[in-house]
Every structure is written in C-alpha cells, then in structure tokens.
C-alpha cells in the first residue's frame, strides 16, 4: 500500500488523482511518471545552459590571445558549467529515468512516498533557479565547481558569488537526500510479488546503489558547506589557517562526496546499458549477478578513493599508497562490467537501433576514460597530470563518454514508453555519429594538450606554445556536440508531433515496464504482475526455456518462493502471471498536493534571504515550517495510511527513518571528526579544559538518557492503547528535551560570558557548530513530540498510529546516542 492519500480508480479516476492536463495538475502532481518528466525537461534545459557555457569557453580558447570573454567571466563560466552539468543536468537526467522507470520495473504503482518525491523535485528546481539567478544579479559563482578553500573565503571571494554557490548546493543536497531515502524504501519495500533482490533488473540495482551513495556522500559535503557558510556569514575559522585550521579539510570533505558523486553520475548509465544490450542482442545479460556485485563493489570502493584527487597536496607516502591501491582496485569491478557487456553482445541477434549505438558507444568511450583514470591512480603520474587538460579529457570521457552516452541510450530506449511515440531512428543514428565524432574531436586532443603542459582553467594563452591547433580542433568538436544535441531536440519535437505511435512493447523488451501500455496508465498496471525472474516479461512472453538460467535470480526470500510457485501455476493454466485481479475500486492513487511546492518556495526564499535580509530568511523559514507541518498532517486521518507495510514486511516510514539515520551518522561523524581533528589547534584560548563544565553536562546527559526511557514508555503505552500513560510519557519526553535545551542555553551563555564565541578560536567554532547542530536536532525532536502530544490531546493518536510514535522515537533515540558520543569525545576525554 502506498504512503499516500488514496483515490479510487473509477470513471473519473484521472481527474480525482489530479491527472488533468493543466498547469495546476503538473504543479500539484505526485505521480512518479510526471515527476520523472519534470526532472527530464528541467535537466534538458539546464543541460543546454551548461552547454552554452561550454561553447563560450571553447570559443575563447579556440585561438591564442582571444578576447571573447575576460578572465572573470571565464572563471564564472567554468564554475557554472561544472556545477550545472553535475548537479542540474546529469544527476536530474538520471533522476528522470529513476522516477519514471523504477516503479514500473519493480511492478509498483508509485514510489513509497509520492508527495516527498514531489517535494524533492521542487526543492531541486528551487536550488537550480537560485543558482542561476546569480547571473541576473551579476554575481555568478566563480571559484570553481570544487570551491577550494581558501579561494572561497571572504578575503578572496568578497562578493555574493560564492554565497549563491554554497547556498544552492545545500538546497540541492537536501533534495537529493530526500529522493535517495524515498527510492531506497521504494526499491526495498515496493517490489512486486516474486521480485527478490536478485530478480531486480540491473538498472534498479544500480539505482539502489546510487541512492545509498547519495544518502551517505552528501552529508560530508553538506558539513563542508555549513563550515564555509559559517566562515563567510558568522566569522568562524574552519578554513582560516591563521587560526590553526587546515585548508585541506575542505578538499577532504569535498572529495569524500566528490568521488562517490562520480559513481552517482555513472552508475545509472551503466544500469541503462545493462537493460539496452540484452534487449537488442536478444540475450540475457551475461553474468548478470556479477554485474550487480560489481556495481555494489564500485559503490563501496567509491568511499575509499577520495584522496586520489589530492595526490598533489603532499599527503605522505602511506596515504598516497593506500589511496593508490584502492583506486587501482576499483578498476576491477569496472572492467568486469565492460567484459560482461561485450559478452552479452557476443553471439547475440543484434538489432542495431539508436539506443544500442549509444550503449556500445558508452562501452568504448568509457573504457578510454577508465584507462586514463587508472593512470591517475599512480601518484607520480598523477603529479604530472594534475591541473592539466589531461584531467579535463579524462573526466569528460567518463561523464560524456559514460554518463551522457548512457543517458541518450536510455532516452532512445524509453522514449516510446514515456511518450507513446517513436523517435526517428535514422536521425537518431546521425545524431549518434555526430556526437561520437564531435566528442572525440573535442576531448581526445585535450589528452595531448595536457601532456604538453596546458593547464586547466586558464582563460587564454599566448601563441607559440604549440597549443593553437588542437585547441581549434577541440572547439570545432564542441560545436559538433552542440549540433548533435540540437538534432536530438529536433527529433524529440518531431516525434511528439508526428512520430509513429509506439506499441506497449516496441523493442520486444524483457522487463516489466514493457508489460503496460505506452505511455502507462496513471495506475501503471491493471493488475500487479507476479515476477518469474530477472527478465520476467521475456519469460512471460516466450516461456521458461527462452530465459536463461542466469536470469532466474534465485527463488528465495520473502515473496519469492510462494509467489514463484503461484506464477508457475498461472503459466501451467495458460494465464498471464499477475496478482489476483483487483476490483476497480481497490486501485488507489496518490492524491495531488500543493504543499511540496509551497515548502520548496519557502526554502528558496530563505536561501535568497541569506543574501538580502534576515527578515526574509525568517519569512522563508516560516513558510517552510508551516507547509511542512501541513504536508505531514495532510493525510493524518486517512485510514488508508495506517499500515504501509511492504515487501520486507516493514512499514515504509520505519525503513525510511533508519535509512535517514544512516545518513545522519555520516553528518554527525563528519562534524565530530572535524572537532577531533582540530582539537588542540587553537592558537588562542580559551581551551576546552579551561572552560568545559563536566558536572553541568553530566546532569544534562543524564536528563537526555532518561528522556529516551520516557520515549520508549510512551511508545509502549500507545501500542497498548493506554492514552493516559501515552500522554504522560510523551509530555515527559518533550519536557526532558526542553530541560536539555535549557542546559545547553545555560552552557552557551556562560561560555560567551567567559569569552568563548563562534569567532574566538578554532575550538569555539568547532564546539558551537557541533553542539549547536545537535541542539537543533533536539529542538526538532521536541517539536515533533509536541505535535504528537497535541494530536493525542485531540484524540487523534490511537493504537493504529503507534508507528508514528515509533519513528519519532527512533529519531529521538538517535539524538540521544549522538550525545553519548559527544559527551565522551568532547567533554570527558582529556
């Protein structure tokens, strides 16, 4: 059952579910398919913006001593090009396919939290618009997409340029984490009967890995951005070397995020290729489980290689060796995928469609990018290549040759499913060859330019360096890429107006999305299909023998064995494998909501207010808080929301909360690591041993521990329907939380009186930010508890709502365990 307000599918189901065609229906939509389209259209617009930025840079570099743009504009162009392509183009392109296809491929009617999905999109759009608004006020970010400290400090970036960048990245990060949690729950908990984990399509697997990377990799960059924000807005010292700080802290935090981000960008494309190749080779994916394990390994290793971006900073031989080895190791699962894809094509009945062209193009181009990546894994070689055009060539082979080729493969593959019309195959192949030639003309020469010493990020160069010819070739190639993208736009518009109508299964597909009409109905499937194996629809069409044993994907696991037997029985009876037919009134759809866009507007206003006036921040924050409360309580009394148990037999909200807490581990882990790394580095006092009050903090620690006891007592009372006790313990927990906050207020004010503020020294900066963010979490927890208490007092918190108390309790206990760590590491350890 979906976590939504539900509307029955009847004669007016489309209208009831807000599936009209007007603008309002798109603004309030919570349908994963429409949100996928919104992501896709937005991504394409920002892709064009990023592409224009690239073309201007290439025009500037086409000739030596060129004056198309000046140095400042060039700085802004490469900063915005990188930021736009990573966060506003490639990531949302992937999000478009994830949104549209994942629920269809797992046989679900929507995502686990449709309104949260809409909220993620609108927050993304708010962040994207805010970032690009910087152009209109003449302050585009200009310190590089990597934002290295201390280029970003007030001293070297005094304008609002960097503020636009750091605030928009925080907004975009919030969107990504919310979407990540949503899709993890969706994939784990909304699979159709019979779809064990190993029966999931490889694209869904890669989506799952990517969502874990997002929820775990974004917190470190968020913390890094928070430090930067505090340095710029409140005068803290996180990146101030004169106060004892280390500039490399930023580089570490950025690349702890930045390298997994590479896999966030590339793995969805790998997933697409793993769907396209079997379809057009008419063979199962060779060694599919190994491809899946390789994707998981790439994701896991992705967290252990970040410092290979920093070999040039001088980390020392031990660190260099460790990160070099792990970086070389990550080439193994990547190579495994390449060989598996080639083996899938080998001996297949190849249909050379445009999608297959792009998929094969990815294999070739990404291999080139991967090989130059292995070269960077060697620190001595890397030292020669760092900050040269060789690196620019490398990562464009990964991100265009890999991600973009894969996304175009997906576009040609799934376009008929999304629009109900076919793209022009001939024009598509012309587009492919122009892109292939243009891309290689642009970036292959850059290997050579880098090797002969052309540095990155220079806005011009003198004649006679030997760089002229290949820069001109590179610029001509860039216009080839632009022509290719233009042809895709022409093809898309032609298809929407006059393209041939697509059947439900135009490619003779293998997975569940081809089992429903093109485009799918609002409810996706009339009957939820039962899953037979990884290529379940292929097997459904052609029988058991047609599907290789390798596509079985195991039969164990919840829903696997029993459902598998049931589907075999359906087959034996000559009927299509679906769950027992649902009566029309039993198909429920999520109702539209305008609260997601209002909350996103509030966030955007608050971000803008940070650059204008504190009153605007407060106004934006108020709109956000009010709309989020309305959002949370919108369907509180809907009985259809009471139980949201899914495939795992666990409530969606509980899976979501644990996933979020995993993300929070990374958030607080990064804050604590920074505090510990900077411990003892303050160049002026007061120092911790002079000021920390252990007796007072021991009392507040005891208070918080006891609040956890009251919280479990409250949950137990709600579960047994004892409303009196439930009220008492909920009130007690909130009260103890408030007492803890009182202790913290006392501690903060006494420190300020003793001369320790955020600005005093490195200890003050790290202490107040760490404990302050913990306090903010406690405050949020108190607000949550008070909300539950109010619901209870109004008679709206019964036994059936126990899970709501349980997830609030999980959050509360997490805040408690974070304090357990802080109390020991900050206060007790001498």
């Amino acid at each position, binding site marked *: 059952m979906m976590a939504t307000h*539900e*509307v*029955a599918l009847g004669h007016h189901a489309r209208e*009831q579910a807000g599936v009209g065609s007007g603008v309002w229906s798109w603004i309030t939509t919570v349908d994963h398919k429409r949100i996928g389209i919104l992501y896709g259209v937005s991504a394409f617009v920002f892709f064009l913006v990023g592409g224009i930025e690239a073309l201007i840079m290439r025009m500037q570099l086409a000739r030596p001593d060129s004056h198309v743009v000046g140095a400042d504009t060039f700085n802004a162009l490469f900063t915005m090009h990188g930021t736009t392509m990573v966060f506003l183009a490639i990531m949302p392109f992937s999000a478009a396919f994830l949104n549209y296809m994942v629920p269809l491929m797992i046989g679900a009617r929507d995502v686990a939290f449709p309104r949260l999905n809409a909220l993620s999109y609108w927050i993304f759009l708010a962040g994207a618009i805010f970032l690009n608004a910087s152009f209109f006020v003449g302050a585009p970010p200009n310190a590089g997409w990597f934002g290295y400290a201390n280029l970003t400090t007030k001293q070297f970036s005094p304008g609002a340029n960097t503020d636009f960048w750091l605030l928009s990245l925080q907004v975009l990060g919030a969107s990504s984490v919310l979407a990540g949690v949503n899709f993890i729950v969706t994939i784990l908990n909304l699979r159709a009967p019979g779809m064990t984990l190993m029966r999931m399509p490889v694209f869904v697997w890669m989506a799952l890995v990517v969502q874990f990377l997002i*929820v*775990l990799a974004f917190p470190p960059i968020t913390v890094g951005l928070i430090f930067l924000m505090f340095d710029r807005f409140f005068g803290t010292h996180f990146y101030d070397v004169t106060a004892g700080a*280390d500039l490399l*802290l930023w580089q*570490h935090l950025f690349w*702890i995020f930045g390298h997994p981000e590479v896999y966030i960008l590339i793995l969805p494309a790998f997933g697409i290729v793993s769907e396209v190749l079997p379809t057009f080779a008419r063979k199962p994916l060779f060694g599919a489980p190994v491809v899946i394990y390789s994707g998981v390994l790439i994701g896991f290793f992705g*967290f252990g290689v970040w*410092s290979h971006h920093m070999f040039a900073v001088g*980390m*020392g031989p*031990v*660190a260099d060796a460790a990160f070099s080895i792990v970086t070389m190791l990550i080439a193994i699962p990547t190579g495994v995928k390449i060989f598996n894809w080639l083996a899938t094509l080998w001996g297949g009945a190849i249909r050379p469609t445009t999608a297959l062209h792009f998929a094969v193009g990815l294999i070739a181009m990404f291999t080139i990018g991967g090989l130059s990546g292995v070269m960077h894994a060697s620190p001595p070689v890397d030292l020669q290549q760092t900050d040269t055009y060789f690196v620019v060539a490398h990562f464009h082979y990964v991100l265009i040759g890999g991600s973009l080729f894969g996304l175009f493969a997906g576009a040609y593959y799934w376009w008929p499913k999304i629009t109900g019309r076919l793209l022009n195959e001939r024009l598509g192949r012309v587009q492919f060859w122009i892109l292939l030639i243009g891309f290689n003309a642009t970036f292959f020469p850059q290997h050579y330019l880098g090797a002969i010493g052309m540095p990155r990020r220079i806005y011009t160069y003198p004649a006679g360096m030997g760089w002229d010819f290949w820069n001109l070739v590179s610029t001509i190639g860039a216009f080839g890429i632009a022509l290719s993208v233009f042809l895709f736009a022409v093809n898309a518009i032609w298809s929407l107006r006059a393209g041939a109508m697509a059947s439900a299964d135009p490619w003779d597909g293998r997975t569940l999305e081809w089992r429903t009409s093109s485009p799918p109905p609002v409810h996706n499937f009339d009957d939820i299909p039962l899953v037979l194996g990884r290529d379940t629809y292929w097997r459904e069409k052609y029988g058991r023998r047609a599907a290789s044993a390798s596509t079985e994907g195991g039969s164990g696991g919840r829903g696997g064995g029993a459902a598998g037997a049931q589907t075999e029985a359906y087959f034996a009876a000559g009927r299509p494998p679906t769950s027992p037919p649902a009566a029309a*009134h039993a198909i429920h759809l999520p109702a539209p909501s305008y609260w997601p866009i209002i909350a996103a507007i509030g966030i955007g206003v608050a971000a803008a207010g940070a650059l204008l006036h504190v009153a605007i921040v407060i106004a934006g924050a108020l709109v956000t808080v009010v709309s989020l409360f309305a959002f949370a309580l919108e369907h509180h009394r809907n*009985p259809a929301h*009471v*139980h949201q148990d899914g495939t*795992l037999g*666990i409530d969606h909200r509980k*899976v979501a909360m*644990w996933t979020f807490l*995993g*993300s929070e*581990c*990374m958030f607080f*882990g*990064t804050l*604590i*690591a*920074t505090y510990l*790394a*900077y411990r003892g580095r303050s160049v002026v006092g007061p120092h911790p041993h002079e000021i920390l009050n*252990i007796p007072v903090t*021991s009392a507040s620690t*005891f208070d918080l*521990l*006891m609040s*956890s*006891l009251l*919280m*479990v*007592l409250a949950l*137990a009372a709600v*579960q047994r329907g004892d409303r009196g006790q439930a009220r008492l313990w909920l009130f007690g927990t909130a009260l103890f939380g408030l007492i803890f906050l009182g202790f913290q207020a006392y501690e903060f004010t006494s420190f300020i009186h003793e001369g320790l503020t955020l600005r005093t020294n490195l200890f003050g900066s790290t202490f107040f930010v760490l404990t302050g963010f913990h306090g903010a979490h406690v405050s949020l927890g108190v607000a949550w508890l008070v909300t539950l208490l109010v619901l209870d007092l109004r008679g709206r918190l019964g*036994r*059936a709502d*126990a*899970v709501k108390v349980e997830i609030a309790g999980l959050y509360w*206990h*997490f805040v408690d*365990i974070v304090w*357990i*760590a802080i*109390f*020991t590491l900050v206060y*007790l350890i*001498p």
Partner: protein
Amino acid sequence: MTEIPAVSEPHSDAGHASVATYVKVALILTGVTALEIGVISIRFLTPIVVPLLLAMSAAKFALVVLFFMHLRYDSRVLSGLFIGPLVIAMVIVLALMSLIGAFVTFGR
C-alpha cells in the same frame, strides 16, 4: 473520492522488550555514565582512561540502539541500513582525522 478500507488492527509488538527491561537498561545507562565521570578523576587509570571511556560510551550507544531503538528485535534489514553507514562513517572519521594530522601514524 470513494470508500476507504477499514483500519486493520495494529501489528503485534510482542517482539519488543518489556517495560521492566527498559527500566533496567536506563539504570545501566545511568550507572555507566556515573562510572565514566568517576574514571576521569581516578589518577591510576589515567594511562587507560581513553580506551575505558570509549568502551563505556560504545556500550551505552549499543544499549540504546539495541533496546530503546528495538534493533535487537527488528528486521536485520534495518540493522544493515544503520550499521553499514555507521561503520563507513567511523572509518571515514578515522581516516579524516589521520589525514588532517590528528594521529601521528599518517602524519604528513
């Protein structure tokens, strides 16, 4: 808008700990916190005070997670969702501290 299905009974929570267990855990947490405060003032424990404090903190952390957060009784999937990121976070914390120079082993 059509008829909404009737609310079914909430799930059984028989797998969770009893109130008595919660109270015992709270008493242990209180006792360990008192011990933590005690060991920092005992001079002969100074050489081992850091590992002692870390061990006691880890024990408190585990008690809350296992009993108050019910991870001891819940699905292993939930344990994986929490412990996996926790381990990654701890490894990254240690690596980051090493690389920034908080430990001597990786000193630059």
